[in-house]
């Protein structure tokens, strides 16, 4: 008997290290950078939303692979005839990862924590998306444990889509009260994966939630690791140290597609990459100058050459995958002669000097330095001397999103990734004059009263056909005014171990592993 114990102990020791190594039910994801926060209400960047998504649910969820809305923590909902009151019927028997029950109070807490400055837990974070997501909310009323009513100040068509965004995730009130501002490091939700551990700079570990209301995921552990260098991330996938990666360098894509044991998945992205003019300052307050720059840049060469087809040429400010897209709107073709002519008409026959701000990287920015160097070369051909200034991403955002009278920007580049699949989330937030920074993201300081009127009307109209018409008209006016040079819509590309089955890319760019299986 004693011998047997010794033998067993010995065997256990032999097996133990193997068990600690990578097992078949784990997916290790290589992210572009470290998540900033795991509190879904505070997320503004891709790395955080990707690492946090699996731990949370919202009342309404996006379907797998699309922005169609399906029941989440609410099993059904009704909208009053005046479009002002939304009543949600909540799923029963759902528990947060800390064991506390999910109910109407948790919904009220999750929304009011963000929008009510007098809420006792409002100071537990900074909620950058609160105004966009819930700015129109007047009050949240608990009807009973499983019914909640949200009353709006005015009708707001994209409201349901907003309720599926990460900022609308339902968090455990008990955990927020327990951890305070540290909730961002101890996230507790109702999602398919539970938080285990976050070692900053190394990894975020999550494990499957056995009590998940939609069934326990087959994948038992998901680990998110920041690997900053694109080439290093790719090398780790090839070496088998990562199972799933983002941002494959465009020039490596062909080679990666041919690799054994690795598969590549692509999908047109809900994304746009664009050059922004400061339309309130000379010389770009003249639409002819903005059009001239549009004509001067060979956008197709940039997409085919630098991006190697990892994006599609933008014809419009709105990506074609978003409803309301106007296919009749066409981007300015490459025509340097026309560009020079327009510059001469505008009083700049010999061009001018301008500063072009460029970030070194950043989510959705693709290859900013290479793309801008090409843009700089095209501009020099029509006499515009663009001086490039590079900034680190955080500094860059701070410099770009300031009031118009403070802004030092002349020309810069930016990208936008849709949050909820609604055109409002592109056109209104990026181009309405009500959304000039710091309130929104219209850093072109573009203002066209007719466009403003159309976009506002589309927000308060609930009929999709009417909204589509309004948005189509707005796109025509915007492209004619040329506040931007839209360059491309990035294709979402991920590469993964080919044993990962059933993964679907989502237009919002987050990863969902709850329905994924791993072939043994």
């Amino acid at each position: 008997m004693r011998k047997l114990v010794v033998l067993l102990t010995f065997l256990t020791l032999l097996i133990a290290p193997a068990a600690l190594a990578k097992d078949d039910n784990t997916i290790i994801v290589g992210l572009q950078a470290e998540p900033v926060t795991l509190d879904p209400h505070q997320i503004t960047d891709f790395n955080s939303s990707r690492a946090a998504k699996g731990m949370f649910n919202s009342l309404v969820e996006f379907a797998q692979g699309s922005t169609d809305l399906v029941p989440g923590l609410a099993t059904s909902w009704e909208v009053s005839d005046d479009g002002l009151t939304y009543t949600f019927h909540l799923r029963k028997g759902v528990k947060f990862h800390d064991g506390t029950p999910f109910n109407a109070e948790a919904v009220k807490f999750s929304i009011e924590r963000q929008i009510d400055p007098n809420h006792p837990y409002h100071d537990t974070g900074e909620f950058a998306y609160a105004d966009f997501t819930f700015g129109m909310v007047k009050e949240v009323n608990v009807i009973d444990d499983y019914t909640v009513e949200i009353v709006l100040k005015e009708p707001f068509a994209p409201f349901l889509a907003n309720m599926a965004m990460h900022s609308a995730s339902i968090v455990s009130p008990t955990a927020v009260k327990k951890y305070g501002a540290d909730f961002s490091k101890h996230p507790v939700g109702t999602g398919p994966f539970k938080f285990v551990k976050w070692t900053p700079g190394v990894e975020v570990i999550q494990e499957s939630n056995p009590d998940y209301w939609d069934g326990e995921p087959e994948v038992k552990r998901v680990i998110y690791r920041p690997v900053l260098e694109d080439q290093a991330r790719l090398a780790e996938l090839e070496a088998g140290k990562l199972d799933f990666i983002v941002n494959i360098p465009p020039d490596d894509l062909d080679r990666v597609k041919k690799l054994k044991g690795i598969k590549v998945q692509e999908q047109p992205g809900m994304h746009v990459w664009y050059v922004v003019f400061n339309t309130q300052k000379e010389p770009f307050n003249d639409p002819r100058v903005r059009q001239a720059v549009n004509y001067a840049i060979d956008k197709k060469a940039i997409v085919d050459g630098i991006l190697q087809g990892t994006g599609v040429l933008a014809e419009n400010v709105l990506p074609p995958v978003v409803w309301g897209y106007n296919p009749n709107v066409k981007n300015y073709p490459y025509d340097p002669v026309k560009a020079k002519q327009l510059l001469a008409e505008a009083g700049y026959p010999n061009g001018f000097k301008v500063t072009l701000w460029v970030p070194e990287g950043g989510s959705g920015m693709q290859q900013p330095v290479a793309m801008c160097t090409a843009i700089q070369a095209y501009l020099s051909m029509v006499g515009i001397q663009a001086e490039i200034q590079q900034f680190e991403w955080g500094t860059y955002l701070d410099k770009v999103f300031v009031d118009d009278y403070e802004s030092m920007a002349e020309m810069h580049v930016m990208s936008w990734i849709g949050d909820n699949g609604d055109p409002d989330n592109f056109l209104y937030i990026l181009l309405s004059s009500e959304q000039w920074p710091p309130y929104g993201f219209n850093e072109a300081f573009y203002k066209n009263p007719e466009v403003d009127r159309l976009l506002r009307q589309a927000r308060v109209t609930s009929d999709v056909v009417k909204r589509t018409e309004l948005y189509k008209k707005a796109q025509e006016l915007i492209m004619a005014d040329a506040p931007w040079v839209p360059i491309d819509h990035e294709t979402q590309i991920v590469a993964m171990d080919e044993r990962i089955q059933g993964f679907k890319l989502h237009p919002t760019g987050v990863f969902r592993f709850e329905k994924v299986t791993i072939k043994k």
Partner: protein
Amino acid sequence: MEPEREQATGKVLPRGRAWSEREEKTEGMWCPVLRRLWKDKFAVLGAGIIVVIIGLAVLAPVVSPYDPNQVDLLNRLKPPGTEGHLLGTDQLGRDVLSRLIWGGRVSVAVGVFAVLIAMFFGVFLGLIAGYFGGAFDIVIMRVIDVLMAFPYVLLAIAIIAAFGPGLVNAMIAISIIGIPYYARIVRGSVLSLREKEFIQAQHALGSSNWRIMFRHLLPNVFSSVIVAATLDVGWMIMAAAGMSFLGLGAQPPTAEWGVMLSNGRQFIRVAPHLSLLPGLAIFLVVLAFNLLGDGLRDALDPHLKE
């Protein structure tokens, strides 16, 4: 310390004669130095590389086959040996050879100017601190200590936050960081020199402090400063390339070795020459300045006299 003693004997001579005699001495000092340097084959190799690189840099507009900023998006990432592009093309279809030549111009100029700026201020501060001593010494050397403890990238980020990114600002940042190196060398030598007879004699003759500092102390510390500066050029080129690598230095489309290396990193699998070639260029020029600096140090060291 041979030359010092000889100078010290000049105290009984009229001022004018002492000066001209020292000039002869100085000239007389450099000839054997060059002769000894010539015997050091590594130093000669270093000097040779430097001459070639500076020659190419000066003649860049003539020898460079293409405009270094000419973009050709249809001919990207061509390997070395491609027809028309001896060293291939980069991610924007620009000729790598032309960019290396023009990049040498930028890198070497930045290295040399950064050293000159650092040397100017460092020598001046070192002279004052060493010669006057007391409160001057304490204040200057504590500031120098603070500078030494300051990481140059952090200082560069601060300067760039204030004045915007660019090569000139990066150069200013690395020159400021270079100041302590010279200040400390000069101060150390001056501390011992100022007690020597020939300096005491100048005091006795009523020479002004400035005259003593610049006419009598400076020439005697200059050989060690020259050695330090030669070794430092390599470091400065590396630092400038490092700053550009981080995006704090040269801005696109400027061809600069650090920038080229940084941009090439994205293509290391498909076009390794984009990062290897500028890396090699940095390596060569830094090595060359170090070989020359080492040779100069040996040649100037009186203890190694045969």
